[in-house]
């Protein structure tokens, strides 16, 4: 073997070895890159699936926040309107009481007061009864004997109506109480209004809240 052949052979051995070494390292790098890509994609897929669910939950929560705020505001709106209506209706009843107060200063009222006393006494079942009136009505000259007779006729029970010693704090009407205190009938004008309030409120609402112009 000539020297040049020998050198060529050595060079080939070394070149082949280098080529194989480079290829081995190249394959490894490629494999490593593949592993990294695979893991990146795996993580991306898992995270995106979870993220989608996270966003869906957040969107649901968002819808719920808005719907709840709207519902609460509508409840508050209805409450504001209802509350305002109640205030205005109260003003009407206060005005009615004021007018009734004025009315109790007229002669026309005497007849009504007597009918309230009689009706209350009949409801109490007759007997010995005390009638409480306001301090103004206390001064009126009411026909207690005639009223007692009328109650007696209606109830069949011997009846004695008398003014109570202490006046009542009322705009008008009467409080009727048996002398033993077992029976009491409130026939004041305030009580009368309260008893009729539920029937009157829809009528008042219709007048108040219907636009006329």
């Amino acid at each position, binding site marked *: 073997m000539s020297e040049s052949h020998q050198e060529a052979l050595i060079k080939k051995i070394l070149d082949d070895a280098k080529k194989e*070494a480079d290829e081995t390292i190249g394959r490894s790098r490629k494999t490593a890159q593949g592993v990294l890509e695979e893991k990146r994609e795996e993580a991306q897929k898992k*995270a995106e699936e979870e993220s989608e669910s996270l966003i869906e939950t957040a969107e649901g929560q968002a819808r719920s926040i808005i719907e709840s705020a709207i519902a609460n505001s*509508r409840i508050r709106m209805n409450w504001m309107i209802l509350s305002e209506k109640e205030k205005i209706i109260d003003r009407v009843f206060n005005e009615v009481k004021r007018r*009734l107060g004025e009315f109790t200063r007229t002669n026309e009222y005497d007849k009504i007061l007597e009918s309230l006393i009689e009706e209350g006494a009949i409801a109490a079942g007759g007997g010995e009864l005390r009638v409480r009136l306001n301090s103004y009505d206390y001064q009126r000259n009411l026909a207690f004997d005639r009223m007692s007779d009328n109650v007696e006729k209606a109830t069949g029970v011997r009846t004695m109506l008398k003014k109570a010693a202490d006046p009542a704090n009322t705009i008008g009407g009467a409080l009727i109480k048996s002398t033993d205190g077992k029976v009491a009938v409130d026939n004041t*004008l305030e009580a009368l209004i309260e008893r009729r309030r539920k029937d009157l409120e829809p009528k008042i609402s219709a007048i*108040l809240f219907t636009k006329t112009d």
Partner: protein
Amino acid sequence: MVDKVLAEIRDVEKRAEENLAEALKQAKKIEREASVDAIRVYDETYADIKKRAREKADEIVKKARVDAETEAQKIIAQAEVEVKKLRETAEKNIAKAAEQVFKEIISYRK
């Protein structure tokens, strides 16, 4: 002479084998490091996407709170207008309603 040449060739072959062994060692090291890196890449990728999703979710909820407040204010403003209208309509009719009730109570007793 021949022996010398053969010895030299064997020597070169040995070096070549050593080079290959070294390359294999390096290749294994690359793959081993890639396994470790893969876990890090997985964790980082996962954490990054989840972080962005959480931020987006927080933003959605935050925006909803602002929108909800806006909607609520609109409704309350509308309620205030309704109440004002109601008050104005009622104001004109209070005397009429009071008169009606007064008459009903008085006539009820007569």
